[in-house]
């Protein structure tokens, strides 16, 4: 087998080992909250603090009706957290699994899927906060959540692509998570999470979101959940285009570094 086909064979085998990586991913969540008293409730509580503070100030500042703005803010923030993990935290996905990679024979891609599982569970807990808020504002609809599923699928595929890139590159360049963390802090403030796109449009600076691929990824999940309707097709198209691009880069990087990862750990 050439190294290249070996990579694909490994990736395929890793997917088949779903029992292993889902278990590891769930264990990661359990481990994170093991020694805390209220456990995953902290995620909800922290979101509550954030929305209570930032939501109030920004809502008033941008003259938004709270009933719409708070769910908007919290949904965007939860999805953002997921994307952030897939780029920053994922930079250490191989590094933290070193003890396993050097000792067991399974393809190392299972540790990327493990990361995806644990980030996804985190997001799911955050989305519970959205549901709670929607119930509180009495505008919850199961139809909206169902319409969010195609967007969610694209979001997760994109996140896995991020994880592949970040984990491989992050193993070689340990500075990566720090650098990305800083950059993404800036991106957070220019991505429509704390403010709706209407404000950008009104000020004539809509290029801020138009050329931001993360906006489309967030929008195709957030909008159906909140507005109970599908976003325009072009938003899906832009998100899909971005996913494609991410995966082209991801495969190129994986092919280059796959054989070297174990030696770089």
């Amino acid at each position, binding site marked *: 087998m050439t*190294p290249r086909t*070996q990579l694909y064979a490994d990736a395929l085998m890793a997917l088949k080992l779903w*029992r*292993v990586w889902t*278990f*590891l991913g769930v*264990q990661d969540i*359990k*481990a994170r909250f*093991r*020694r805390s008293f209220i456990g995953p409730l902290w995620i909800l509580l922290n979101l509550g603090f954030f929305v209570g503070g930032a939501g109030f100030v920004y809502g008033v500042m941008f003259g938004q009706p709270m009933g719409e703005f708070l769910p908007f803010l919290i949904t965007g923030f939860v999805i953002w957290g997921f994307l952030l993990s897939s780029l920053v935290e994922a930079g250490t996905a191989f590094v933290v699994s*070193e*003890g*396993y*990679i*050097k*000792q*067991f*024979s*399974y393809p190392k891609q299972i540790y990327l899927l493990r990361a995806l599982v644990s980030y996804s569970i985190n997001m799911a807990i955050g989305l519970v906060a959205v549901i709670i808020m929607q119930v509180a504002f009495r505008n919850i609809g199961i139809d909206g959540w169902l319409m969010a599923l195609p967007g969610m699928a694209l979001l997760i595929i994109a996140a896995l692509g991020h994880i592949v890139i970040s984990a491989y590159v992050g193993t*070689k*360049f*340990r*500075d*990566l998570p720090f*650098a990305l963390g800083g950059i993404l802090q800036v991106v957070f403030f220019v991505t429509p999470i704390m403010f709706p796109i209407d404000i950008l449009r009104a000020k004539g600076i809509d290029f801020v979101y138009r050329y931001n691929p993360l906006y489309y990824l967030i929008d195709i999940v957030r909008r159906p959940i909140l507005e109970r309707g599908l976003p325009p097709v072009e938003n899906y198209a832009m998100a899909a285009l971005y996913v494609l691009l991410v995966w082209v880069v991801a495969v190129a990087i994986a092919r280059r570094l*796959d*054989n070297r990862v*174990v*030696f*770089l750990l």
Partner: protein
Amino acid sequence: MSEFAIELDDVGIRFQGERNSGGLKDWLIGRLPGRQPAPSTYCVDALRHVNLKIKSGERVGLIGLNGAGKSTLLKVMAKIYPPTSGRVVVRGHICPMFEFATGFEMNQSGRDNIRIRGLLLGMSPPEIEEKLPEIAEFTELGEFLDYPVRTYSAGMFVRLAFAVSTSINPEILLIDEVMGAGDIKFADKAKRRMYEFMEQGKILVFASHAQTLLESFCKRTIWLDAGSIRMDGATSEVLECYSRTNVPTT
């Protein structure tokens, strides 16, 4: 019975890297025009032109001085190190027993670590649950199994890892000198379990400095010297030559 096999065809492993961190800084400096730092890369051939075939039913010993490449060779067979040259074919489920000190989730309980290790060694979840009582019993860790493993002593880690590794049904068993496990009481028990376990493997590759062990387990022994196979043959002959060459200096 020819379904299990290990074949190495002209395999080489070359460790390459930068002496210092090899991170962003060095990469950037390397790209700067004009300023070329002193070459700081290293290149070690851990294995060179290794050719060998191990068939189903064979028990093979590995011997050699420290740094001769025994562990590297085992990691190649376990598909952990991809060969930098040559070709490796391994048919059969691999059970590596390399180190018992790493690969734990420190904040998880002993029981959860048993589950994780079991999964990574190829057991299915129902199989693990079925064997869990027996594994727990063997570790003699009792109530400590419900404690997070970060509270464990070094010996307790070894007990746990050893008990899980030896509870699976091995096809290809790769062992890297792991005999010194636990206290006196455990070591004796572990030895017996280990011997039974080694009998079960359809293929056994066993790196050790303990010549008596190699003699009792392996018909064939491979002597590695500086990354190459120096000798490959009947255990008694290989051990004799090895001892003659490497006379301990007093």
